[in-house]
C-alpha cells in the first residue's frame, strides 16, 4: 500500500478540504471554456500539484489520470545529451525543465513548439487545447523564461500552460502578466486539523486532536510533511498515546549537529570539520538554501546565541543565501557564513568592541 499521503490525495476539486474559494473559481474557469494560462504558486506541501491535477480532471475528465512517463533526449548546442523525463496523458504533458540544468531553454523551445504545433487529436476530448505543466518554474533560467514568452501567446489556440512555482520572485514580469496568478497558500492549523482527521478516518483510527496539533506545529504548514509525520508516528506507537516525540528527518538532525559544532568551538579546525559536514549534506542532495535557513543550521544557531547577535546571525545568513543563489560553488558561501558567525560569536563572547566590524 502507498503511504497515506498518496492514498488520501484528493482527486477532484470537490474533494479538496481547504481554500474552497479557490476551488470554486477553478471549477468555474474550467467550465467556462476560456481557460487561461495559469501560474500556481505557494510553499511546498500546500497542495499546488494536487489542485492542478484536480483542475485538469475537471477539464478533461478521468482520462487525465492515465499517466505514462516518457524519456526524451535533447542535444544541447554543445552536443551533450540531455535526458528529460516527460509525464503525460492524452490531454496534458508535464515537464521539469530544470532537469536539463543550464540547457532548460533548449527543452522549452523544442518540446513546447512540438506540442504546440499539434492539435488535440482525440475527438472525444472535452477541450480543444492541451495543457503543458511546467514544474519548478521558478528555477527556469532567464533565457528559458524568455523563450516561453512568445510561445505562450502564439500557440494559445492549441495549448495552455500551467506553471507551478514556489514563489513568483524569480519569474520575469512578462511571464507573470501572461498568466492568471493562483496563490495556493499553506493551510492554516484548522484546515490541517480537518485534513488529518479525514486521513485518520479513512485509514481507520482515531486521531487525538492534541497529537494532531502537535504534528501541525512541527510541520510548519507543510501538509505533506504533516501526513508523513502522522504515519511515522502511528508506526512508532500504534495507539498514539503517551509522550510522543516527532522523529526528525535524518538531515535535520544532522544540520542541528552542525549548528552545535559552530557554537561549541570557534577555530580553523572546527571550520574544516563543519566544511566536511556541509559537503556531506550537499552531496546528499540537501539544497544549500535549506541547510542555511529553514529550521536548520541558522535557526538552530540563532536559538542558541544571545539576543544581541541574533539579528546579525540572521542578517548574514540572508546575505550569504543571496550570494549562494548567484554563485556557483555553494560551499564557499556556506563556509563564509560559518566563519562570520564564529567571529561574531567569539567577539560577543569576549565582549569586544564590534565597531568596524560590519
Amino acid at each position, binding site marked *: *500500500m*502507498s*503511504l497515506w499521503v498518496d492514498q488520501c490525495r484528493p482527486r477532484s476539486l470537490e474533494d479538496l478540504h481547504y481554500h474552497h474559494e479557490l476551488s470554486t473559481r477553478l471549477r468555474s474557469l474550467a467550465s467556462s471554456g476560456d481557460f487561461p494560462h495559469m501560474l500556481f504558486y505557494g510553499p*511546498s506541501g500546500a497542495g499546488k*500539484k494536487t489542485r492542478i*491535477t484536480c483542475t485538469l480532471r475537471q477539464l478533461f475528465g478521468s482520462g487525465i489520470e492515465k*499517466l*505514462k*512517463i*516518457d*524519456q*526524451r*533526449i535533447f542535444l544541447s548546442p554543445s552536443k551533450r545529451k540531455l*535526458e528529460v*523525463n516527460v*509525464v503525460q496523458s492524452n490531454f496534458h504533458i508535464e515537464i521539469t525543465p530544470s532537469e536539463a540544468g543550464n540547457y532548460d531553454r533548449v527543452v522549452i523551445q*523544442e*518540446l513546447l*513548439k512540438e506540442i504546440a*504545433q*499539434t*492539435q488535440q487529436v482525440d475527438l472525444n476530448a472535452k477541450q480543444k487545447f492541451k495543457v503543458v505543466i511546467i514544474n519548478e518554474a521558478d528555477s527556469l*533560467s*532567464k*533565457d528559458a523564461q524568455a523563450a516561453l514568452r512568445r510561445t505562450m501567446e502564439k500557440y494559445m489556440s492549441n495549448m495552455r500552460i500551467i506553471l507551478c512555482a514556489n514563489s513568483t520572485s524569480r519569474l520575469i514580469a512578462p511571464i507573470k502578466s501572461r498568466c492568471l496568478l493562483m496563490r495556493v497558500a499553506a493551510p492554516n492549523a484548522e484546515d490541517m486539523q480537518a485534513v488529518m482527521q479525514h486521513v485518520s478516518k479513512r485509514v481507520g483510527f482515531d486521531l487525538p486532536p492534541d497529537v494532531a496539533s502537535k504534528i501541525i506545529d512541527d510541520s510548519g504548514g*507543510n501538509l*505533506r*510533511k504533516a501526513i*508523513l509525520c502522522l504515519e*511515522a508516528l502511528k*508506526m512508532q506507537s500504534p495507539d498514539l498515546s503517551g509522550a510522543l516525540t516527532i522523529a526528525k528527518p*535524518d*538531515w535535520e*538532525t*544532522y544540520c542541528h*549537529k552542525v549548528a552545535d559544532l559552530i557554537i561549541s568551538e*570557534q577555530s*580553523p579546525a572546527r*571550520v574544516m570539520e563543519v566544511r*566536511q559536514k556541509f559537503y556531506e549534506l550537499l552531496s*546528499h*542532495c*540537501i*539544497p544549500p538554501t*535549506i541547510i542555511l535557513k529553514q529550521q536548520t543550521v541558522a535557526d538552530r544557531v540563532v536559538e542558541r546565541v544571545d539576543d544581541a547577535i541574533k539579528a546579525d546571525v540572521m542578517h548574514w545568513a540572508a546575505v*550569504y543565501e543571496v*550570494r549562494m543563489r548567484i*554563485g556557483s*560553488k555553494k*560551499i*564557499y*558561501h556556506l*563556509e*563564509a557564513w560559518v*566563519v562570520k558567525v*564564529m*567571529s561574531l560569536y*567569539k*567577539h560577543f563572547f*569576549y565582549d569586544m568592541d564590534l565597531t568596524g566590524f560590519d
Partner: protein
Amino acid sequence: MTPSKNAKPVQRGKAITSFFKVTPNNSQSSQPSSSLESKKKEVARTNHPKSTILQASSSKMQDVIMVDDSDDEPPTKKIKPRKSALLSSSEDDAFPKKSTSGSIKVKARTSLPAKMIVSSEDEVAPRTAQKRKKLSALISSSEEDDERKRSPPKKKAAVANDTSSKPKARASLPAKKSKIGDDEDFEMAVSKSDEDKPIVSRTKPKTMSKSAISSDDDEPKLKSKAKLKAPKQRSVKKKAEEVEAKSKIEGNGKAETQESKKPNWAALKAAKARGPIAAGSKAVPDGEDNCLLGLSFVFTGELSSFSREEAIDIAKRFGGRVVGQPSSKTNYVVLGEDAGPSKLKAIEKHGLRTLNEDQFLALIATRKGSGKEIDEKTRKKMEKEHEAIKATAKEMEKKEEKAMKEAESGAGPSKVIDPSTQLWTTRYAPQSLKDICGNKSPVEKLELWLKDWPQSYKANFKKPGKNGMNMYRAVLISGSPGIGKTTSAHLCAKLAGYTPIELNASDTRSKKLVENGMNINNKSLDSFISGSRSIPNPVGTTITDQTCLIMDEVDGMSAGDRGGVGALNALIKKSKIPIICIANDRQAQKLKPLMSTTYSLPFSKPQASMIRSRILSIAYREKMKIPANVIDQLIAGAQSDIRQVLNILSTVKLQSNTLTFDEGKELSKMNEKYTIMSPFDLTSKILGPYLFSHTARETLGDKMELYFQDHSFVPLFIQENYLKSDPAKLRSEQGPDKELKRLELMDKAASSMSDGDLVDGMIHGPEQHWSLMPLHAVCSTIRPASFIYGTGVHFGGPNSMSFPQWLGQNSKQNKLSRQLSDVQVRMRLKVSGDQNEIRQSYIPALHPHIVRPLVEEGSSAVDDIIHRMDEYYLAKEDWDTIVELGVGEQKDDLILKKIPAATKTAFTRKYNSSEHPIPFHKATDLGKVPKKIAATEVPDLEEAFDFDEVVEDASDDETNAKDTEDISHDKLIQASKKKKGAVGKAKK
C-alpha cells in the same frame, strides 16, 4: 606605577653620564667594535628601565619589572646578557638621533592603552618604598662607581655573547617606543613593532678581540663612524644632565610579557618569515669590481636591510663566493639577527671572522678590486684555472684548424663549412667524452654498454654485465633539455664504432613507418661507399659497418606518430642493433611501454662548476671578457642548460665583448624558462609566509601570474587549504586577542572567496565575462591569501596540504542527484513532490518502511518491502540510492553494516526473481538513442505561416513523420510502456 617612575630619571641620567665617559675611549679605542658594543650596552640600560616603568599597575607586568630591575643591578645583571645585548643593539642607532631631536622613542607593544599620562615624581606612593631605596642607591652611586660597574659588564658582554649562541625567542622581546616631550609631558605611543626597528648586529667579541678586525680596511671606516657619532652623543648627554638636574622625569614603557630561555623555533621561523626589518634602508656601496674575489662568505641570520637573496646577490656581484655552511675555508661569516646556532658553533670551532651588515657593506666599499688582495694560494689556484681555460681554448682552435685543413684537402667535398659561420652550439659541441660537461657516470655506462653490445647480443641478453645493463637491447636517456643527451649519445656511438642513425621529432615515426621503414637489419653502407678502406673519424676510431639507432625525442611521438611508441617497443624487443632512446620526461604516460624494455639512464643537470670552465674557454676563444661570476649567473638562470647559455653568449657577442653582472642577470631573466609549478607548489607559495611579507618584491601582477598558471585549480586549492596556515599577521597577538584576530582574518578571507565565487559565476555563467579573470584572481586567491598567509601550509605534518575536496564532492553530488532524479521520476506517478521534496520528506518517511525492516526483522520483511517498493515503482537500484542518500545516523555505511549479508542476498534474490511494474524504460537502457529533435530541422514557422490552418497542416505532417520514425525506432519502448502502465493500473 610610581616606584619605577622614580627609578627612571636616575637611571637615565646615570646611564647617560657613563655614556659620555665612554665616548672619548671610544674614539681612541683600537677595537672600535667592542667599544661600540659596550656603548650599546649602556644605551640599553638607559632605555630598558624606562620602558618598564609604566607597567606597575598591572600585576602581570610587575613580574617583568622585577626582572628588568634586576637587570640593572650589576651583580644580577649578568644573567640576562642576551636580552640586553639585543636591546642595546636595537637602540644603537635610534637612540642618539632621536634624543637630539628632543624626544626619545621607546617602542611599545599592543594591549596598552594608547595614551598614558604619567604623573611626576612628587606623586610617588609611599608603599613602594622598598623599591625606591634600591633606586636611590643607584642614584647616589658616583660616576666612578658607574665606571667600575661598567667595566665588568664589558667582559660580561663577551661571556654573554658566547652563551648567546643559544637562540632566544626574539619575537617575544617586544621593542618599546615612547615619547618624551621637551615639556616633560609624557605620552605613550603604541606603535607597530615592525616599524623601524633598528638593525641588530651581533658580532662576536672573542674573535674580534683576537684577530683585530676582519680586514684592515674595515677599521678606518668604523672608526670614522664612531667619531661621527660622538658629537651626537654629547648632545644627548647634555640633555640628560638637564633632566637629571630637574630630577623630574617620567617613564613608561611596557615590558615583555613573555620570556623563554629555550630556543623558540616558532619565533625563529616567524622572524625569518618576516624578512628584513628595514628593507632598502641602506644603499649598496659602489665597490670596485671583483673586490670580493677569492673570498667565500656564509650568510646566517637575518640582515636588517637586505633579504638573504639580495645579500647573496651582492656578494656574488663583487666576485665573492657564497656557500651554505661555514667551514674552515670560509673567509667571512656575515651575521644577522638570530643566527643559526649550528652556524655559530661552526664559527667558534673554526675561529672564523664575522661581519655584521654594515661591516659587510664597508668591506665592499673599501676593499681593492680585481683580486689584488687575495692570498697566494687562491691566486695560484685562479691562475691555474686560467691556464687550463687557455689550454682548452687553444686545443679547440687547433682542432678546428685541423678540421678545416682536412676539409680543404678534399677528404670530404661537401664538408667545407667555415666554423665561424656555424652556430656556437655546433661549433663548440663536444668532440670527445672529456668535453662533455657533467654526467660522467651515465656517459661511461652508455659507452660501456655500446661496446659490450655485440657480446650481449651473442649471449642473447642473459648476462647482466658490470652495470646490469647488458640485459637490455636499448637504453632510455632522460633529462632536461640542453644538458647534452643527444650529443653524448652520438659521441658514444661513434666512439664505440657505430654509425648512428638518428630519428627525431622531425621524422614521422608512426607504427607503420617504424615497422617497415627502418631497415635496421641492414648493415651500414658507409664502408661500401668508401670502399674497403675504413675512414677514421675525428675521434680516431674506425667506423665499422655497425649501425646504432638513436630515437631522439621519443616523448614527442604524438598524434602524427600513432602507435609509434608501441611499434618502437616491439622493435626494441627484437632489435639486432643497439637502440638509444632519448626523452625529456621519463615518467611520461606515453613512455610506459618502454619502461620494462629499456635500461633507464637519467642525466642530471650538471653543476655550474662543471659547465663554467668550458663556457669560460669558449668565451676566451671568442675573445670575450666575461667574469666567472657572470657565467655562473647565466648558468643558474638557464638552469644548467648549456645550449641556452651558449646561445645567450653568441647573441651578446654580436654587440660587445663584455658582460657585467647586472647585464648577465637581466639576460638570464629575459631568457628565463617558465617553470611550470604544480598546484600544490603554487598553493604553498601563495599561502606561504614569503609572498606577502614586507620584503617581498613580487608585484600584484607577479602574484596574479601565479593564479594564471593554473586558474582552475589554484582557487580550489586556496579554498581547501586557507585554514591551515598560521597567519603571519597574528604574530604580535596573544591570548584571546589572537583568536579573535584569527577569526577576523579568516572571515575576511572567506568573504573574499565568496566574492570570488560570484565573479566566477559571471565568468562561467551564460554571459561569459572572461575579462573578469584578473578580478577573479584577486578575489579568489590573492586577497584571501593576503590575510591569512603564514607558515604551516606545506607537505606533511598535521595540517598538510590536501587536494580540493570540492571536485570529489561535487561529482558525488552530481551522481547522487542524478540517481535521486531517477527515483523521483519513478515515484512521479504516485507522488506529486519534486526532487527536493522526495529527498527531504519522502526518503525519511520511506526509510522505516523499506530499509529499517531489513535491519530489524531480517529476511522475513523482504516481501513487505518489495511490495511497498512496487507500489512506488522503485527498483533495487533505487533502494540502493535511498540508502545511499542517508546522512548522519542513516548514513549508508552504518545502515548497510547493520543488515546481515544473508538478508541482503535474500532481498536481492527475491527481488530479481519476481516481476515488478516499471513506469517506463529509459531510452538509454535499450541501447538505441532515439533521434534527436534537431532545432535546425524544424522550420521557423513563426515567420513562414500566418494563419493557423497552414500551421496545423505543416505540423501534422511533421508529427506524422516523426511518429513513424519514433515507432520504427522505439517500438519496444512504446510496447513495454503500455504493458507496464497496464500492470500498474491492474495493481491499483
